[in-house]
């Protein structure tokens, strides 16, 4: 018997019962949001600091095209009937519309001050933009590509969620610390929903009748009834949750923790976090590929999109405390913002202090 005939040691086969981060795909600077086009096997990524939208081949993980848009595109959505991409260019005060197949620019629509979020109602043929700086939500006709009305919301209106079953929209008003409910057809405000301080993302699950709201300040996800606006409960996640997506069954919610470089996976029926997935630096948002179940995460700090296979399964246990705790702080020598002088950690010797790592976005 030669070695080819020799039985293998151990079990004849094994089943991998953990998630796997298959790749971190470089896409551009500051990728803030991703949307999946399962039919064309593509993902589209808004790269805020490249002022571009990038199309990725979902299966090969390579860029197909890069389209320049306005300054600082943050969200991106896909209107399947027209195969148009919409992105909100925060620093240009516009929404740019692209042909999803070629990346060619169709138009650029002025919408108001610092648009940072987009919502979509395919049935009503509407796209809604959230303007944090003036607290408004302009609505764009997805076919005619013109603004057809504006909903007054409150300061910080950024993320927009649309309940397509009830024809209602929701804006998360970050600075006002509120949530506005509006009629997605008539474009009139209907009231408010109670949210915690620092609401920065809202995502609907119309089938389950739930609205999820992320409070980046408190590290929690609130669950609100879409039927009557009642706050049902609040689930803790990791630091600074800013992006979310829900799986097609409504059974799992994936939450991007900007402050931790992780995705929290929540079992929505049990109402608890089941595990965390380590992704790239400062993840901004995520989307699921319904064909494969792969989770795509846009990492604004790393300039990458992480592809996570079987994200619903736990992975390696994470350390309970950060490995740096209990060790000497590595020394630094960094330029001061004001004047450029190099400051070193020796200046703070024998002092107790807090270093806050931050980014402007």
């Amino acid at each position: 018997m030669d070695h080819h005939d020799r039985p293998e040691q151990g079990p004849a086969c094994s089943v991998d019962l953990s998630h796997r981060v298959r790749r971190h795909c470089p896409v551009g600077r500051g990728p803030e949001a991703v949307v999946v086009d399962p039919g064309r096997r593509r993902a589209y990524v808004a790269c805020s600091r490249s002022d571009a939208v990038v199309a990725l081949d979902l299966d090969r993980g390579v860029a197909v095209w890069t389209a320049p848009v306005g300054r600082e595109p943050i969200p991106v959505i896909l209107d399947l009937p027209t195969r148009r991409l919409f992105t909100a260019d925060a620093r240009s005060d516009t929404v740019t519309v692209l042909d999803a197949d070629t990346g060619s620019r169709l138009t650029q629509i002025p919408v108001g001050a610092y648009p940072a979020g987009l919502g979509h109602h395919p049935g009503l043929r509407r796209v809604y933009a959230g303007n944090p700086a003036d607290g408004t939500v302009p609505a764009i006709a997805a076919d005619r590509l013109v603004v057809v009305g504006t909903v007054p919301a409150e300061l910080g209106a950024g993320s927009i969620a649309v309940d397509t079953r009830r024809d209602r929209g929701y804006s998360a008003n970050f600075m006002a610390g509120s949530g506005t409910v509006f009629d997605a057809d008539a474009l009139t405000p209907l009231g408010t929903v109670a949210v915690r301080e620092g609401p920065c993302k809202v995502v609907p699950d119309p089938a389950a009748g739930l609205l999820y709201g992320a409070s980046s300040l408190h590290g929690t996800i609130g669950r609100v009834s879409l039927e009557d606006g009642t706050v049902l409960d609040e689930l803790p996640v990791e630091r600074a949750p800013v992006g979310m997506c829900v799986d097609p069954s409504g059974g799992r919610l994936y939450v991007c923790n900007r402050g931790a470089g992780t995705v929290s996976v929540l079992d929505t029926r049990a109402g608890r976090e089941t595990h965390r997935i380590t992704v790239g630096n400062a993840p901004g948002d995520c989307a699921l590929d319904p064909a494969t179940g792969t989770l795509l995460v846009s990492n604004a700090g790393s300039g990458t999109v992480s592809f996570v296979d079987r994200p619903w399964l736990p992975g390696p246990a994470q350390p309970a405390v950060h490995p740096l705790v209990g060790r000497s702080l590595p020394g630094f020598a960094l330029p001061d913002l004001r004047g450029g002088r190099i400051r070193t950690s020796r200046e703070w010797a024998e002092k107790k202090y807090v270093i806050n790592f931050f980014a402007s976005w």
Partner: protein
Amino acid sequence: MINVWENTDPRQEAENFAAVWGLGGTVLLDRTGEYAARLGIRGVPTNVLVDGRGIVRAVGGTTPDELHAAVRELLADD
């Protein structure tokens, strides 16, 4: 405070941010993200608490309650 992962024009972006939010304290620029990587920082915001002997006592703690508790503990400890 240490600014990191700014991608484009860190000085200008950090300056604008400091002006908008009224940050008057020391702001340093980690332009390449190298120092954050050495510390294993993976997200923003992240707080690192250091005691008088230069030992890291906590990493994380960004909610108001967590940060207040961690600072109280740091100040109380000798």
